[in-house]
């Protein structure tokens, strides 16, 4: 005890210098939290594995169809790297939800906000970390899928090189899309404060709702479907734009609108409510 007391006194003033909470430090703290949980790695690996595996299946399907005399369209081949996105996004979304909801679940939100009392800064840091994670995961998974499926596609000479701007854009856009998904998930986790509830909300919004709507015949359902976050966001990666479909930048803006709305609602609630 005496030793500690002495060292406290000697270094206290030195340590007080430049020790204020800054946004960069809160981001670093969030990064530490992210990389010190086993669940991070499990969900990340699951997300990437889902995308790669579904991509490989899609490539295999194209190869088989081609052998049966149904040559694959170029757009279908180039959609292979993102074929598994609808599954991969759910696991990544779950990971992003947990960034905040697990803090409410375990009560560690209190130490967190005691250390960094500016709540909007904490939420922004979590959103930023989630966005970076989504961007890297999306781009990396799409690139990995592209590289891994080339030998499969090569069997029917369907393989291709990443040579055009559009090819590279599709990879980067996958990252952009998952970044938006991750921020949307952080916002839902902040609003609902409950891991299970928020993960269900993410799955409902990104997967169940579009699937259900696509089964309903008629113009209205199709119109609504077009503006759902996952449908609009997927236009970011589209290589061919069909009639009445949103252009990539339009789809991106719609998706960003959803994300921003959820984030603003989350920010208002997070700042006002007791924890």
């Amino acid at each position, binding site marked *: *005890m005496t030793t*500690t*007391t002495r*060292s*406290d006194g000697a270094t*206290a003033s030195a*340590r*007080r210098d*430049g*020790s*204020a*909470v800054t946004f960069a*430090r*809160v981001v*670093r*703290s*969030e990064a*530490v*939290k992210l990389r*010190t*949980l*086993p*669940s991070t790695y499990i969900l990340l690996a699951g997300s990437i594995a889902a995308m790669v595996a579904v991509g490989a299946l899609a490539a295999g399907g194209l190869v088989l169809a081609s052998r049966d005399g149904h040559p694959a369209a170029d757009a279908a081949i180039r959609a292979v790297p993102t074929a598994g996105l609808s599954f991969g996004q759910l696991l990544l979304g779950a990971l992003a939800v947990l960034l905040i909801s*697990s*803090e409410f679940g*375990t*009560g*560690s*939100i*209190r*130490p*967190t*906000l*005691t*250390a*960094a*009392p*500016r709540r909007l800064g904490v939420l922004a840091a979590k959103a930023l970390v989630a966005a970076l994670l989504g961007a890297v995961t999306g781009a990396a998974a799409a690139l990995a899928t592209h590289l891994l499926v080339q030998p499969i596609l090569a069997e029917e000479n369907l393989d291709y090189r990443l040579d055009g701007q559009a090819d590279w854009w599709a990879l980067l856009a996958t990252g952009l899309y998952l970044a938006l998904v991750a921020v949307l998930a952080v916002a839902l986790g902040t609003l609902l404060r409950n891991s299970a509830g928020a993960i269900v909300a993410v799955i409902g919004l990104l997967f169940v709702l579009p699937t259900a709507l696509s089964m309903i015949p008629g113009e209205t359902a199709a119109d609504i479907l077009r503006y759902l976050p996952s449908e609009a966001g997927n236009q970011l990666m589209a290589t061919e734009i069909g009639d009445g479909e949103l252009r990539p930048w339009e789809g991106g803006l719609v998706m960003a609108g959803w994300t921003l709305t959820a984030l603003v609602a989350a920010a208002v609630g997070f700042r*006002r409510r*007791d*924890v």
Partner: protein
Amino acid sequence: MIEATRLTKTYGDRRAVDEVTFTVQPGRVTGFLGPNGAGKSTTMRMILGLDAPTGGTVTVNGRPYRQHRAPLRQVGALLDAKAVHPGRTGRNHLLALAATHGIPARRVDEVLELTGLASAARRRAGSYSLGMGQRLGVAAALLGDPQTVILDEPVNGLDPEGVLWVRRLTRTLAEQGRTVFLSSHLMSEMAQTADHLIVIGRGRLIADAPIAEVIAGAGARTLVRAERQHLLMELLAEAGATLERGEDDELLVSGMEPREIAVAAHSAGLLIYELTPQRASLEEAYLELTKNDVEYQSLALAGKGN
């Protein structure tokens, strides 16, 4: 220093904390006592800016908590030992907190050493016993070498060695001139640790006084045994004392000093054969205090009926 002014928190109709005003001074250990649901934890959360007061203000070292630029340097707090992600190691939990202030990993290892948690630092917090969780919470509170330390039930779940350690630690922190604010439901523990007591019940401030005064104020009674007891009782009642019959021929007198009792008996020619001053324990004092609060409530109701 912690200063609460008319601090109030309501949940719907219920006033969890009701216009509480107090100051926690540096250089001493201030105990925070109250029955379950009295509003202790709510008050502590408001001090730390986690819950927003419905009314009134509370500042730490002169500012609302949320306005401090380096809050961990100002205030260290242990609110709930279980408020740690069970999948993260104790050391990583502290590293994440430290990162917000640019506190080096060296300091994290220092507080782990200080709290006796170094050997378990790289184990997942989910595997910790309640006592280890408390030590981790204390380690987090000390991380920023803060001027003010707030500990909610720190000895809860600790073994006797741990209880002794917390007692010594809080004493040392107070001797270093820091503000130490400590809640506990263990009165005996509080009696040995605190210099000053703040007692709340039903969200209201009941007492704010040095611990010796709280004990003296609530429990200064004298046990008297005398011949012709009823005569003595009339005499003492006239003099304004409060009387209570004890076992057998015992009479418990409060509101009069032993010497005053003896003088009164002597002047009336009554024989006293026992006169024993009784010092209440803190526990009795505390029960007395909270009982008075309850009695005050029902008296007020009875008064309306008349």
